[in-house]
């Protein structure tokens, strides 16, 4: 078993997942013996601990049909799902930004129209003679 698989196996284990969720509620619970100067392996482990915590939570909420327990059990399928999830969120974020931009343009047009009809000014400068 490769080091990567070993770390992930530990991170998705019930023991560490429970420990992790308890540590979020109770500050006294420590995951490691050391509290600072974490090794690269420990940081990598924390990365997967968080990732699996998120996946288990999404699985419980049935947020996505493509996520199942079998997916979490299988490292390759987990990688695949996370890549898809990242792209999906990326797509949703871009779509959200596009919609925001569109709203901005629409608002600007609306303001322009109002301005040309003499309803609204674009700036606060008062050009009247003193």
């Amino acid at each position: 078993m490769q080091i990567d698989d070993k770390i992930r196996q530990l991170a998705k284990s019930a023991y560490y997942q429970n420990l992790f969720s308890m540590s979020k509620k109770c500050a006294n619970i420590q995951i490691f013996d050391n509290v600072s100067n974490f090794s690269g392996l420990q940081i990598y482990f924390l990365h997967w601990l968080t990732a699996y915590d998120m996946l288990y939570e999404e699985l419980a909420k049935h947020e996505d049909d493509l996520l199942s327990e079998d997916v979490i059990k299988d490292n390759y399928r987990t990688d695949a799902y996370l890549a898809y999830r990242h792209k999906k969120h990326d797509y949703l974020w871009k779509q959200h930004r596009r919609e925001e931009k569109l709203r901005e343009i629409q608002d600007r047009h609306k303001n322009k129209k109002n301005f040309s009809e003499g309803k609204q000014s674009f700036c606060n400068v008062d050009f009247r003679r003193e």
Partner: protein
Amino acid sequence: MENQTSMEEVLEELEKDILNPELIKDNKSIFKTDGKSYQATMPNQKELTDATNIHNKEFIKLLQQDDTMVEKNLIKILKEKQGIDVKSMQEEIDKIEKEILFNHIDCAHKKDTEKKAIEDLRQKKEELKNKRLKIVLEKAGFLAPAIEVRAKDEYYKYLTSCCTKVFKAKEEGSSEGEWVLVWKNYDEYCKDNSKIAYVALGELTNLMMNI
């Protein structure tokens, strides 16, 4: 330090430790070689600063030598004199990474019941990964003489020299004892041609994971 230990032996030793369930318990890694227990510890701030100084010193020393080259120039020479295109190797690596991403997205859409399709994709990914690894290793081999790479090697060697300890039992067979440094200083580490010098280097880089 000449490479007198076979790569297989070193990898075998590293593989043994990978099965250690205590991998993440603390910032140390315990491993056994030739019947002795060793410990690689995470370097502290002082050791990291010293290692950076060693790295910088080596970098400047190599810069002043005639037969050395920085990575950028090495890439240029490799292309001009030997026809080896490192940049196109990187492009190939990027292309494979994109293919792996598409493979992942494809797999993510498969249902649990589509076992055959998932296995086919898994196999395809393994092929892509192996292809990528081959190019990465080839590229690393070509760039190994670069000043940057050689200075970075010194950095890790220095850290290995000051972060590897061996267990000295009070009496033979006793579990009581203490952890003592394997090498008194960096020079002593550099003179050591035994297997432990290479295994310890591998253990430390594993532990640090380039952090």
